[in-house]
């Protein structure tokens, strides 16, 4: 019965993001926040492992500029037993290095564990950093891009879909595993379960509680600019018989350098 820590990030719902018509910068204020998709897969996997093995704790950890308790409640409603969170404004500029460092401190507050599960990347930044860095901090084996996971007494076996086949790997526990969207379909907690989850504990920390200072939140990488790509159609209309159209189209394709005659 393994105890599992799941790392979850609250991100902006990028599908709701619309660029400003002039500056092309994303208008964050118009979009809602949600739990990063891959992280929900990680949580779902942890819950399934617990169901399959008939026990074990599932602990959620989350760090961000302002962690929304309501979203944490949804995580607990899905089935996590408890949550450890920290909110600090400087987390808005956190990179993988900072996030992994803060999460590792939260994890050390979470008690005993055998496995850390993370989404392979976050919905907003897509850096693919946090999981591997956590493994590094704890000196643990790391299995990435996992699309199927089997867990036994003291080891895990993971499947990763490659371009030309499937890669199967095994390692001992404890370990860090990052998962993708293919691994499962996360359950959706019903409103009644979300309400019932209000009984579950959410532990909130301050930086000092974790032995960290603001200096520790300085990222290695700084985001300089974020802009939407401007895509515009040329609204060119070709007319003529199918034969003429084909030849006109071929001309354009060659002109644009997309193909050679």
């Amino acid at each position, binding site marked *: 019965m393994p105890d599992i820590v799941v790392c979850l990030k609250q991100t902006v719902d990028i599908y709701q993001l619309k660029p400003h018509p002039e500056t092309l910068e994303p208008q964050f204020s118009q979009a809602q926040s949600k739990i990063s998709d891959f992280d929900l897969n990680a949580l779902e996997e942890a819950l399934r492992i617990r169901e399959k093995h008939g026990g074990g704790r599932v602990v959620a950890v989350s760090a961000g500029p302002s962690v929304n308790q309501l979203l944490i409640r949804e995580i607990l409603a899905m089935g996590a037993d408890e949550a450890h969170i920290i909110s600090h404004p400087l987390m808005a500029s956190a990179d993988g290095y900072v996030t992994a460092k803060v999460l590792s401190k939260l994890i050390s507050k979470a008690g005993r564990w055998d496995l850390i599960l993370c989404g392979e990347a976050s919905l907003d930044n897509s850096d693919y950093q946090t999981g591997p860095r956590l493994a590094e901090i704890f000196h643990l084996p790391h299995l990435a891009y996992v699309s199927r996971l089997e867990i036994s007494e003291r080891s895990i076996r993971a499947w990763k879909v490659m371009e030309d086949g499937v890669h199967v790997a095994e390692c001992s526990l404890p370990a860090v595993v990052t998962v993708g969207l293919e691994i499962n*379909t*996360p359950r959706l*907690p*019903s*409103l009644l379960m979300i*309400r*019932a989850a*209000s009984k579950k504990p959410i532990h909130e920390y301050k930086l000092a509680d974790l032995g960290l200072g603001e200096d520790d939140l300085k990222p290695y990488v700084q985001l300089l600019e974020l802009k939407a790509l401007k895509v515009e159609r040329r609204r060119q209309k070709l007319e003529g018989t199918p034969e003429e159209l084909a030849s006109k189209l071929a001309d354009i394709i060659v002109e644009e350098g997309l193909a050679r005659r």
Partner: protein
Amino acid sequence: MSACSGLETPFRETYTIMPTGTDLVMYIVLLPFAALFIYGIYRRMRYYGLRDFWGELFMDMPTRLGLAVRYALLQRKVVSERRAGIMHTAIYSGAIALFIGTALVFIDYDILRLLGGSILRGDFYLVYEFGLDLMGLAFTAGLCILLYRRFVVREERLRPKLEYSLTIAGIIFIAVSGYVLEGLRHSIQPRDWSGWSFVGNALASIMYRGGDLETMVAVYRGLWWSHAIVAFTMVALIPYTNLLHIFTTVANVYFSNMRPTTPGKMSTPFRLDQLEPTDEIKVGARRVSELNWRQRLGLDACTDCGRCEAACPAYAAGTPLSPRMVVQKLKGEMWNGGGKDFFDGVLDEEEVWACTTCAACVEACPVLISPLEYILEARRALTLEGRLEKKKSTMLMNLARFQNPYGLPQSEKAGFIEELRAMGVSTISEKPDAEYLYWIGCASTYDSRSREIVRSMVRILMAAGVSFAILGEEESCTGDPARRIGEEGRFQEMALANIETFKRHNIRRILVHCPHCYNTLKNEYSDLGIELTMIHHSQLIGQLMREGRLKIRKPIGIKVTLHDSCYLGRMNNILEEPRLVLSGSTQGLVEMRRVGRRSFCCGAGGSTYWYEVPRRERESVIRLREAVDTGADTLAVECPYCLQMFNDAVRISGYEERIKLRDIAEIVAEAL
């Protein structure tokens, strides 16, 4: 004056051919059978929940007796189908008559005889003999139709099952042996009044009269005992076979008003606004033992007649669902103890999700079972645990985050509201004394084709000078898709928010063109603390036309057929108004094969619009073919979801040139 001019008064001769003491032996033999019967009934009632049953039995008796008379005694729904109706009426009335006949013999011989009296004598006895022979014929004729349906034409919906064949064989044996016994009796003991038992007498004349008396007596005695034993066996088998329906259907009909009056109204298992924040509530059922006693009784009332299956659009479309099989599987599971998880080999999840909640099954059931009810309970249980695939959970997430199932941000509707304003429409804040609140609904707010309905409706309302307003930005989903998918909590959260909006603006009268909004606001919000007067646009248009406030300049030259939306017709009985409107605004209304309460769902109800179920065909395409078969050039609808479903169906089946799709409002607006 005696009808019989002979010397003797006719009377019932009981046991006269049997050896002395037969009556006593028979009662001793009957005992174990009776014990089996009583034990079986007791056990069934234990399954339903005996205590609750007694508590409910004497409540609301006048209404319930009325239901029992209408649907059990008079078989009002059974006879709605011709062949099956004639069959069942014949068997049913024959069986009752023969039962009464046997009971009279018992009273005559075992009670009155001992007191020195008799009723089965004289003219009454002759009428009795004649009547029984006649009803016996009806019984036999019914059995012949049964055999014809089951074994000659093999009606598809009649499932072959050994149990059924055995009970049928037993009943046939009782009927045939009863007549043969009567024939033998008249052969052995011819009487002046034998002619009154016209069937028995005819049989006797075929048999060899005055022949070997000894053989005939021996055959009579043997047959008499086998007739008795088979009859006892059948009685003993009642609680263990389909024959139990004799009692369970009556009970189910009697208690049927414990369900909401329309299948459009789902039960409210809790009130979100009255829950303590930490209350843990279980909704739905995933075991027979989690159903209530009435629902368990309902399972046992199912006779496997298959009418629900024949009416079910999801079944016709080749999805895994058959409402009959849902009930039958749950019934079988109840007989096995009822403790097994539905989704552990009893039901299939897809079966439950395929249901469009159209309630055709409820309408079809002759004994007032609601297969829909079990399906919705199972959905609630699945949703409570969050066991939903992507499309379903996305829809629910959209409701939670955007207050509409499309998942479009509120900003998407700003443009449309602006357009309506330009047409002269006000919001309720600007026009608080408006007579009607026009509730637009998500489909017509976010779907461009459905917006046409609103534009037409606004033109109609303005032409008739009706005072109305819209909610504008304040309108959100009624919660219907959440409730139908089983997310009761989310439904109530949305409903309570809407109720607050209604109360804030003091709204009581709402005009709506979406039957799903109509149904939920009218039937379901009342459980959450608001009574709304709802009017469907077809009703209001009809009313305006009748009052002369809306003048149709010239009926438009189309031949139209109407698709009754389930949530308007079947659930809320709005059938006349749309037809009046169409007859008044077009040149001719033709009807499809399935109309009114027997209409066939477009396939979008019960939130099935929002996800996919494996299927052979689409309900909408099946229904569209029916519409095209009428020769109509226009299919009129009264629901934006029907409109969208048929829009796809027209394209899929390449009927673009054959038939046009219009909402009723669009047709009327054109005729103004």
